[in-house]
């Protein structure tokens, strides 16, 4: 029942939020933060309850038949990947709610939409029924439009529209492909476990796999259909950026791991070369474009493109190392980007500009706020001691072993990512202190709380990567073994 509880907690918070009068904004924020804390606790419970050494691939299963005619059932369950992603979403949800503590504009509506988003994301991570998977997927995607168009900044309508169009285009590829799988199997069920047991003909798998991969890939920021993501990141308000880059993009990669690969293993084996090439483009190209951006958030946006490239590269290696690294990178990148946007949001809320050239010597004025960004930046450069290092390490090990050319190119991408990250640090945080920002307020203990949580998570997994790797090992082994 705990998985249902994880979905129901934000749902209950959503109802509560709708019931609270709009003027009572502190209460609304408190409800969301509380719901975040409860989901973190529940996710932790799932984490400990999940037995990575058990033979059962999906655990904590709940199943209720819903529409037997079409074979739709309310079917929840998690493997190690799902556990990790659920934890990620819970953490980002909690810290995102805390980061928006200073929001004043239409608080009630904002949190209502945000909770809807969170419900959808949780739903995707724990669904084992294809129908519910897609349902929650759309629930997660749709609130992005109002969240960006209303509370955003910098060409927000454009960004919101672009994002919606791209994601809808992805869904448009996805939906017919998923339905075709449903019909083609002839099993009359949306049960993904049952469907993955069915052996589709190789030709069919090869035909339909790219639809699903690209459909999910749009959300994962896959090159060359990543255009929505930096623009969306830039326009979105802090917590939405956090959820967006931190969790939502992971839905795409998660979809590939949960739907595309188990259901169509032959398709995955056939297409992994071209998609690995595209993922390498992601890494190198994303970093190169980031090198030329002047807006903080654009830099982070393109670095996300680059980092999601590592995830996609790892997935396409189809080895235990590669996929394990990819899953870990999903987690690490989620936490890291959340920290990034949280740190930038804090500075932007006061300075109302994100042009790195307008800043200078921020470390002097707001040392702690800067430290948060610098730590995130170091994490983004793949410095050891933070979770992302291990993830990238595993992916690179797999890539250099399996596809040396892409592997080496991706590793060289590390130099570029160091370059653009250091460029931001140099221009904005180091250098002569710009007296214009004398009056900037540094973080209070309360502001620091969400950021400190994220840093703690990054460092914890940075030194004890086994915490996560042991969790996902069996699931990844099962995945890689199926291909």
């Amino acid at each position, binding site marked *: 029942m705990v998985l249902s509880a994880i979905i129901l907690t934000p749902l209950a918070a959503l109802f509560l939020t709708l019931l609270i009068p709009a003027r009572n904004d502190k209460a609304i924020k408190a409800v969301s933060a509380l719901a975040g804390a409860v989901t973190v606790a529940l996710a932790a419970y799932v984490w400990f309850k999940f037995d990575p050494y058990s033979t059962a691939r999906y655990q904590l299963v709940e199943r209720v038949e819903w529409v037997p005619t079409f074979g739709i059932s309310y079917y929840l369950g998690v493997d190690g990947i799902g556990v990790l992603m659920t934890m990620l979403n819970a953490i980002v949800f909690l810290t995102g709610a805390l980061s928006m503590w200073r929001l004043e504009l239409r608080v009630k509506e904002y949190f209502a939409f945000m909770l809807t988003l969170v419900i959808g994301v949780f739903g995707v991570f724990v669904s084992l029924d294809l129908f519910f998977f897609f349902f929650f997927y759309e629930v997660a995607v749709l609130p992005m439009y109002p969240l960006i168009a209303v509370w955003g900044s910098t060409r927000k309508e454009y960004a919101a*529209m*672009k994002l919606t*169009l*791209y994601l809808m285009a992805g869904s448009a590829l996805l939906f017919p492909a998923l339905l075709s799988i449903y019909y083609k199997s002839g099993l009359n069920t949306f049960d993904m476990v049952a469907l993955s047991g069915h052996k589709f003909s190789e030709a069919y798998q090869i035909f339909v796999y790219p639809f699903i991969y690209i459909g999910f890939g749009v959300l994962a920021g896959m090159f*060359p259909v*990543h*255009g*929505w993501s930096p*623009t969306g990141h830039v326009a979105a308000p802090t917590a939405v950026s956090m959820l967006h880059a931190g969790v939502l993009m992971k839905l795409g990669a998660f979809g590939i791991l949960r739907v595309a690969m188990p259901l169509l293993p032959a398709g995955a084996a056939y297409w992994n070369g071209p998609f690995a090439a595209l993922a390498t483009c992601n890494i190198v*190209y994303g970093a*190169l*474009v980031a*090198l*030329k*951006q002047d807006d903080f958030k654009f830099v982070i946006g393109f670095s996300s493109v680059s980092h999601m490239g590592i995830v996609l590269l790892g997935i396409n290696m189809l*080895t*235990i*190392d590669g996929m394990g690294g990819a899953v870990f990178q999903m987690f690490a990148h989620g936490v890291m980007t959340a920290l990034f946007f949280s740190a930038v949001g804090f500075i932007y809320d006061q300075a109302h500009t994100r042009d790195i050239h307008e800043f200078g*010597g921020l*470390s*002097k004025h707001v040392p702690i706020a800067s430290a948060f960004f610098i730590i995130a930046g*170091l994490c983004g450069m793949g*410095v*050891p*001691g933070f979770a992302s*290092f*291990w993830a990238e*390490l*595993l992916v*690179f*090990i797999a890539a*250099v*072993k399996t596809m040396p050319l892409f*592997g*080496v190119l991706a*590793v*060289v991408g*590390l*130099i*570029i990512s*160091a*370059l653009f990250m*250091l*460029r931001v*640090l*140099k221009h904005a*945080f*180091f*250098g*002569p*202190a710009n007296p214009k920002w004398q009056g900037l307020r540094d973080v209070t203990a309360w502001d620091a709380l969400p950021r400190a949580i994220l840093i703690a998570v990054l460092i914890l997994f940075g030194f004890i*990567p*086994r915490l996560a*790797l042991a969790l996902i090992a069996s699931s990844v082994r099962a995945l890689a073994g199926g291909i």
Partner: protein
Amino acid sequence: MSSGTLALLCTHAPLVGCFGALVVLRRAPRAAAALNILAMLASLGAALAIFAGSNHQPPTIISLWLSSEGVPISFGFLLDGTNQLMGIIVALIALCIQVYSLGYMKGDPGYARYFGLHGLFAWAMLSFVYSANLLQAFVFWELVGLASFLLIGFWFEKPSAAAAAKKAFVMTRIGDVGMFIGLILLLSSTSTLDIAQLMQASTLASIPDARLTLIALLLFCGVVGKSAQFPLHTWLPDAMEGPTPVSALLHSATMVAAGVFLYARFHPLFVAAEGVSNIVLVIAIITAILAATIAMVQRDMKRVLAYSSISQLAFMLLGLGAGSLYAGVFHLTTHAFFKALLFLCAGAYIHQIGSNDMVTMGRQGAAKLRLVSAGLVIGAAALAGLPPLAGFFSKESILAALHGAHANAFVYGAYLASFLTAYYTFRMVFLVLRPSDKSVLPAEEHEPHPHGDVTGSMKLPIAILTVGAAAAGFAGDFIAKLIGAKALHPTYGEMAPAIGIALAGVIVAFFEFGRKDAAQQGFITRVGALDTLFERKYYLDEIYDKVAGGLVSLIASVSAVVERGVLDGTGDLAGNLTIATGDATARMQSGRLQLYIGSAVLLIVVFCYFVGGY
């Protein structure tokens, strides 16, 4: 305590100091400094205790880190002689420099942060030194780079410091990428990253020759980056932007030494890899001469020392490349002492006089600082390789190794480099200590800004290191025994030319700079072109900036244009087309009700006509 616990204490005590200084004691800088010094003392004590324990232990595994395709990669400590020696040196030098910093950094607003970063650095370096496997070594190798990035950029408000920090990180990162790929290849070739296991002859023999050479070259990339060898050396002189004790730390026993140490650690691999040692020797000799020539014309004392570091690191690689582990490690040890000493002396002058310029120092009466000046002279003599100081013995053993392996161009190159070393070192000494009235050198543009007197806490480390620099040369046999390599005892025949060359360098320097009314003009100024070439550091910075920087910038610009124009453009075009279609069809919505009805009826009629079959 077991040796594993001791190693854990030794490596992680500074981390406690770092955490304390950066997070808990931000507002109590003195307490932060005290905490860090205590932590370093604990580290040194633990390092000595490990040394006092038994030698050549098997690696102590603390915990499993991760497993890659079934290959377990653990976090643990390898406590053999080489590591023990290096650990003690690192802890000792770091402690000396921290004590020195108490006085040097007094009054700096980032006092607590400074000591915290010091702790971070010491933690990373010690953990690197004691690493049981290559991946762990790589992790802490990167962390050493990170800590040095933060320390070089310590005065981040100076644009030059921020730029230097960035440059250091990126240049070393370039080397690290090579090393990283090498690491992965090694892992996939041998299915282990355990250093002790990797260095066994049977493991090495199992790797195909071509692959082994490739791996060795890739690992060497990391060494080139970290130890600032040509062509990745340009970051190191810029790294002088950090506080002087930081330079001392970076250039003596940590950071740059990490590269050479890695080479020493993997010496069997490099020896086994065919053809690599020649490449190493070529790069080392180029670096040694290149850096020494640049050092000849610098006026900034720290820069002279920086180039001398590059040059001396190249000497160590010469020894190692020639196949003598002993020579390299021996020079690494002695260099740690005298280079730290020289930097601390330079720091003392800078602190007292307020300028990095050697001419200004001389004119402002640097010689009055007796203890510091004594340290400077002894350190310089050690660097120049004058007997019986530390540098003499280690340099002789390197030359001996070269003689043994390659009695050819490399030896003459090394002779040239050691002549230049003696020359620029004593040029520095004379400029600082014997200002000449007839000097043609113009005064510095800026007025010096003295920071304060040299305190006792600064003098003590100088004194200790002076003793070390004078005496470390006699530890050769001991070191050989510790690291399990054969000591090299050069013959008098081999020694004589080296001594003669070093003396020649000193004498030339004396005539040009040290005489009572010397013009203080080096012989190189007579060849204007060379002078400018050395002065401008062979234009390498400019070339890198223009070529590599320009190339990356160009590609990035192209990518940005592609992103904006092609990818975004396509997306926008699709969107705009949709909107345009909408606009066009919206124009049909004229608001004329009757037009709608009329066309609807007409359509129905037409439909009926065709479908109804009338």
